[in-house]
């Protein structure tokens, strides 16, 4: 039983770590790119009327929602598996 729980926790770690790294890189690239490439960030992006700086800033908001949702979906799966193990343990 404990082994199964450890397996789930390892899987969770494998899932969470890349997400966390992506989050930090994606977020901190914003201030860094503004500091080091201000001109490029001020140029018009692929969306008319919106510069790269604005586009990147706006993207942080759906990024937050999306990552939160992905984490939530994956966690639901972990919760189900843990529940299964617990039930078996009780039997």
């Amino acid at each position, binding site marked *: 039983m404990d082994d199964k729980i450890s397996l789930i926790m390892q899987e969770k770690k494998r899932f969470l770590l890349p997400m*966390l790294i992506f989050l930090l890189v994606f977020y901190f690239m914003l201030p860094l790119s503004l500091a080091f490439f201000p001109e490029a960030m001020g140029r018009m992006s692929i969306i008319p009327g919106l510069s790269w700086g604005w586009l990147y800033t706006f993207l942080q908001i759906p990024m937050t929602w999306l990552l939160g949702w992905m984490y939530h979906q994956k966690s639901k799966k972990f919760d189900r598996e843990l529940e299964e193990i617990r039930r078996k343990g009780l039997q």
Partner: protein
Amino acid sequence: MNLTYFLFFICIIVCTLIITYWAAKRSTTTNRFYTTAGSLTGFQNGMAIAGDFISAASFLGIVGTIAINGYDGFLYSIGFLVSYLVVLFLIAEPVHHLGKYSLGDVVCSRFPGIEMRWMMAIGTFMISIFYMIPQLVASGFLLRLLLDIDYSISVAVIGGLMTVYVVFGGMVATSWVQIVKTIVLMSGTFLLSLIVFSHFNWSMTDFMQRVQEGTPLGEQFFQPGHLFGNPLEFLSLQLALVLGTAGLPHILIRLFTVRNSLEVRRSLMSATWIIGLFYIMTLVLGLGTVAILGYHTLIGADATGNLAAPLLAREVGGDFLLAFISAIAFTTIVAVVAGLVISATTAFSHDIYHHILKKGKSTEKEQLVAARWTALGIGLISTLFALRLETINVTFLVSMTFVVAASSIFPVLLLTIYWKRFNKIGAITGMLSGLLASVTLLLLGPNIMNVDGGWIQREAVIPLYNPGIIAIPLGFLGAMIGTLAARKEKKDNAEFREFFKRAQTGSGRESA
């Protein structure tokens, strides 16, 4: 003050007092008083978290900052939003599984002991009080600006209300006041945003054109670099913002008010949706202020730009809408300060009184009485402080809260949950070094030491307004050095594995 204003305010005060009365009848056990006995749903708690988090500084301050500085003002709010993912990924579920009422419970579930509890209680208490007093001071100024009420009367009214909510209704009243606040705040800003768009016949091009005409920055308004000139300063601020929320006790204790980890995640996801949408609306309002009123009218009314939203409301909707927006600002303040009172109260009455002074042996009734008296004491003392501190610069105390939280409570929580070798000495040195480093750096920084107008009229030793980039690593470093220095025998890994399992799954808690 005319009748419209008066009616709006009376309406809010009466509504929240009804909530408190209803909550008081339900706050009969410590579990209910401190955490509503986990009775909130994820979505309700998400609204309460948003209500706890969005201060009047966000609502009025960010609208004003966007109106003045354009792009950079909006950047400010992004850090606040993204910080919730750090909480969700790393801190939220373990905190929910390990703690009962306070952050002291969380850390003490791994490192039991009086010293540890003292440290967590002091950290929580300091952060909550340091955040509450500037909020109260700001509220005094705000009501004076909006309604022409005397500073002391405004502070006394808000201080009195927050105390009443918490003393009688505990977390139940606090949560519902925060939920109501989120509903009125979101609907009010949504309404105002729609009015702004309709002002330009729903044409974005027209809107943006008028923004450029309204600001002295012209086209430059949409370019970065008006607020944050120094990249290091900017990065440091972003670091404190993104990690700070994961160390704010008044937000984290809200995670005890739901039933299970599913609801914890739902709480935080709802909160990110509400806060994200809110910041998009503040952007509309900020741009709307520049486009409709123009920069000079805004600065003419108040140099800080804090009056942007109220002035915009008056311009597009007359006195009635202004009264409505002022009432929203008022609700915003009381909801935030009530959340801070309950978090400071829990640290004192649960951690210090119950666990340290009474060694965990006080009865349910004694604890409840102690909690109510503590809330009364904290409410009164903070109100008195706020009355005396009318002249201090409050903005730095607010940014200080994020730096202090990110460099003391956040490292200790993170390492407690995830670091196998972490030990009690490390946790204590981590808290101490984080607290000392952040406070010292702020004292040596240009907020206090400034050639023009600082408390100490000298060149600042540390030229950073936001010392997060130095203080946060120092907090972690303190914790690690303490851990390594104190390590005597090699502990077996089984104990940590058990703890880690409990943090991630809550397994030990349910069987206990």
